[in-house]
């Protein structure tokens, strides 16, 4: 990242190659619409390009990248929520959230994505950073700006809720921790 901040386009290419999967995976599992995940991928790397000169190496680049990814996804989710609220308020039919979603997935993976999306935001994020990116508890704590013990609890609860849901049992464990 420092090489890119110094003007090396090749360094940016390397960053994009190395991390595009992480950004896309995260967005794809958070957002119901696959095209929204594509836009997040683009927005995140555009943000990296635009902020390169201001980049200060504090900790792992991946943590920095995933913080931007998470914030970009949260902004979109908030937009979606507002849009649904507006639609409901004005009496329009709510768009089916999963109509275009999970295109290209087989049923089983689509079910896992849906189960993931039903987790409280922070549980889902902690589980994904751990399972998808093999980040340590400390690195996840940096991304989520949360104490390490909370991260452990988030992951255990998230994994527990997923296992229960995927096994056809309902669980109400949505207190956000």
């Amino acid at each position, binding site marked *: 990242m420092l090489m890119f901040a110094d003007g090396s386009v090749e360094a940016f290419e390397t960053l994009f190659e190395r991390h595009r999967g992480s950004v896309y*995976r995260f967005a794809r599992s958070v957002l119901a619409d696959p095209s929204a995940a594509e836009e997040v991928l683009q927005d995140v790397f555009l943000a990296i390009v635009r902020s390169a000169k201001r980049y200060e190496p504090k900790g792992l680049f991946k943590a920095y990248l995933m913080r931007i990814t998470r914030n970009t996804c949260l902004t979109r989710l908030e937009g979606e929520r507002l849009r649904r609220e507006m639609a409901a308020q004005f009496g329009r039919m709510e768009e089916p959230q999963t109509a275009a979603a999970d295109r290209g997935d087989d049923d089983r993976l689509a079910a896992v994505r849906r189960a993931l999306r039903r987790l409280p935001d922070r549980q889902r994020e902690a589980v994904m950073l751990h399972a998808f990116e093999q980040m340590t508890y400390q690195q996840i704590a940096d991304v989520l700006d949360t104490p390490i013990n909370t991260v452990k609890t988030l992951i255990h609860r998230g994994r527990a809720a997923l296992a229960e849901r995927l*096994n056809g049992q309902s669980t109400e464990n949505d207190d956000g921790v």
Partner: protein
Amino acid sequence: MECNIDYETLAAYVAGDLDEQRVAALDAHVLDCRECSRRLRALERSDRALAELARTEPDSQTVLKVRRALANELRPTQRSAVMTLDQVAEFLQISRTELEPLIDELPAFDLGGLVRVRREKLLAWIDERERRFLRSRLHNDMAKPPREEASDV
């Protein structure tokens, strides 16, 4: 007898995040508990599903689309010291055909039959043309007859 060990405890157990005492107690318990065995298998299955999702990658079309958008953004930072004629035309915001009549005037050099222009020389050339343009405008203005004063009548 109903087992009161929940999924969350078992998830912490599998992750190795419980203290030794609890681990030892659970090691002994899960061997004989059908409910815990079932839950552990469920955890394993959902972990395998997550591992599959972890292999998700954007498809080649998505990558291409994003690359194009990023290339546009990167272009201004891609400041090579030496430019091709196509790059010169792009830099001057004219077409390659419009550049052709200007090629002899450009501060270019020959690189084994290829024409190249140094960015700094091109900027100096633009400066010079700017000065010439200003001088000619000034000269034209001075050559014009003075405007007549507006009559009050």
